[in-house]
Structures are given as structure tokens and as C-alpha cells.
């Protein structure tokens, strides 16, 4: 059962301890699911281990890792689209009953988080990369494989959608 202390896996472990926190946080913000985030990040590390070149360049590693996490999150969303829409509907029904509490017990932050979760995956990814990772639009465009103009519109439509969601909820 004991794994040989392989040079490359040793290196990989080192990189994991250095970068897993950031990567899992990003994956969590992208997916809203902690367990899924952990899985995605482990998968990302395994994939990068398959491309040894990336392990030899510690400078470039975080960028490769981020790209891999974003791609994995996107493809997970594509796979889970059906499942997800169902879950969203169920969740918003529950949320609707909760937010109806008269004393405003639901915090502003939770409301926003929920609003973020309701967004389409790409809008959400654009928002997370912009406001959490503080990436320039050009880099986001590269990561999401679209034009910078599209990033602008993903961001504004995403924020707009969140505002509508919050407004809709508080109004009711």
C-alpha cells in the first residue's frame, strides 16, 4: 500500500501543499460545493502530474492550475447541467420559503451568495475570476475561451442578474 517516495509525486505533494488552498477556494466559488471543489482540485493536480513539464516550472504552475480548475469546473457544469437545473429549482423553492421570514433574518451576504449560485456557469465564472482572483479581462477571456468583449457582457449580465435576484427576493 505504501507508495514509493517517487521524485515526481514528492514534488507534486509539495506543490499541493503550496497551492491547494487557493485552488480549492477558487473551485468552491466556481461551483458552490465544497466536496466537489476538493474533488476538482485533486483531479486538476492529477492531470497536471500527467504533464510533467508543468511540474518543472514552479513559476508557471499556479496559472496552469487555475486554468485546469476553471476548465474542470466548466466541464462539470456541462455534464451536470440537467441535474443542476433541477437542484436549483428545488433550492430556490426552499430559499423562497426561508426568506419569507418577516424579521429579515437572512443575511445580505447569503442572499448574494445564493444569487451568485443561480447565475449561469460562465457568468458566475467571470464574476469570480474578476472579483476574487482580480484578473484582468483579457486573462479571463483567455480562460473562458471567449473575446474580452464577451467577458464585459458576462460580468454586467451577471451582476444585473444578481441584483434582480436580490431585489426580487426582498420585494416579495
Amino acid at each position, binding site marked *: 500500500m505504501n507508495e514509493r517516495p517517487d521524485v*515526481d509525486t514528492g514534488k507534486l505533494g509539495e506543490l499541493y501543499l503550496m497551492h491547494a*488552498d487557493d485552488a480549492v477556494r477558487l473551485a468552491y466559488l466556481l461551483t458552490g460545493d465544497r466536496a466537489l471543489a476538493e474533488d476538482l482540485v485533486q483531479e486538476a493536480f492529477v492531470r497536471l502530474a500527467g504533464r510533467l513539464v508543468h511540474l518543472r516550472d514552479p513559476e508557471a504552475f499556479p496559472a496552469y492550475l487555475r486554468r485546469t480548475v476553471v476548465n474542470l469546473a466548466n466541464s462539470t457544469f456541462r455534464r451536470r447541467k440537467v441535474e443542476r437545473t433541477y437542484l436549483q429549482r428545488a433550492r430556490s423553492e426552499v430559499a423562497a420559503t426561508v426568506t419569507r421570514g418577516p424579521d429579515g433574518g437572512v443575511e*445580505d451576504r447569503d442572499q448574494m451568495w445564493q444569487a451568485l449560485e443561480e447565475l449561469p456557469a460562465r457568468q458566475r465564472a467571470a464574476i469570480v475570476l474578476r*472579483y476574487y482572483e482580480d484578473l484582468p479581462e483579457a486573462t479571463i477571456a483567455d480562460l473562458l475561451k471567449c473575446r474580452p468583449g464577451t467577458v464585459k457582457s458576462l460580468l454586467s449580465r451577471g*451582476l444585473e442578474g444578481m441584483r434582480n435576484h436580490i431585489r426580487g427576493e426582498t420585494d416579495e
Partner: protein
Amino acid sequence: MSDMDDRMRDLLRRKADDVPPHRDVPPSMLRRAHRRMAVNGIAVGAIALVLIVGVFAGFQAFAGSSPPVQPVGQPTTPAPHPSTSTHSPHPGTSHSPTPGSPSPSPSASGSSTTPARCRAGNLQIKEYGSNGAAGSIRVEVSMRNVGSTSCALEGYPGMLLLSGTTPMQTKVVRGTSVVVPAIAVRLVTLAPGRVAAYVFGYSDVPTGSETCPSSTALEVTPPNAYAHATIPFSSTACGGVLTTTPVFPGVKVPSS
């Protein structure tokens, strides 16, 4: 708008803080990574092998495309089995005395398709590679047809080690060694500009009372030719023994 920006940043940062720090590397991940690296290693190896074989086959087809058909005029084939020829050190011998090869004794009959033999004057002869392993050095020598007509090469080259201009004891062995693959004798027709090659090896670790004198040059006599070319060649070939292959088409050494 900027209020929304700030709230968004604040939200994401706080949410990110929900994730506890990672202090351990999950062993299952390392196992999967390990397996993946192993698989990739095999895949890379396989791809490299396919590429090498492909390139080699392509090259062989390309280089060997001209002369494959041997007309009836081919005389009793030259002895492909190892034999030796010795250059005795005669100072002042400007020509290497033994033409390298199994002299196919051309009966000058028919066989109009076989072009004339390549002569040293029509060939550009040079060392194009050498490498050593554990006392055995392998040297690759190319012969490019720089004449205006096609010419033919067949059999083993002749060689004579020189120190300056002084011939040295040289013994050419037609055979194989750890660094010299077994290659069959074949007729190589060189169109103008095309190249053929041969490989020879020597040991630079003496056995017994053998000496390993230093050479500075090498006379190369194409198979069945009488004139030679001299190329720079520093070596310490023990006993002056050079083990050589016959000439083959192209510069890619056929695997035996």
C-alpha cells in the same frame, strides 16, 4: 455599481475563507498521479518508438529507392563474412595498397544498369558522427557523390591510420562488435548528391601488451577503388584494429 463591486469582493473573500487550509496531501491523489505518470511515460515511449520507426522506414525507403533491383550481371557475390585486410606501414605509400572490398570481378558483361564505381575523387568523404561507450568507440563515415553522374559502391571500405603523414599499423576487420552492427553487403547506387555511409569501431582500452597509438588522420578508400581520401581523425585505436561494416545507403545506420 462600485458598491456592488465592493460587496461582491467582500462576499467572495468571506466565502473563500470557509475553506479550511490543506495541511496534508491526500494519498489517493498521489496514487492516481503516480499511475497517470506511469501511463503517460509508456504512452510517450510508444509514440517516440512509432515516430522513430516511421522516420527510419521512410528514410530507408527514400535512400534505398534507387538501386534495389540487381540485374543478372551481378557476379558471384562478395564474401559477406568477416575477413581481414592489413595495411602494412610503408612510409611513403601515398595510395592505400588494398582496395577495400571483395572485388566483385566485373566481367564487364551486360549489366548496363549498374553505373561505374564511385572513385574517391567523386566522393566527399567525411566523419559525420562518433560516440563511445565503455572503451568502444564508434565512428560513422559518409560518402557523398559530388560527381555529375551516378556511381556505385559495394562492399567494405579500406582504411589506413596516419600519424601526420606517416602510416600506422592498421588492421581492418570486416565484422561486428558491440558498437558495430551486422550489415549485409549490398550494391549502393549513388545518384549525384546522394550519400552512403559506413560505420566502424575500435577499442581504446588495450588488451594484453597491445598499444594504442595516436592517429591524426585516416585514409579512406571506397570499396573497389584504388585512390583514397584523407580525413582528419584523432584516435587511439588499440592494435590499430578497426572493425567495419560495408557501405550502406543513406547515413542512417541500419539496425542489425
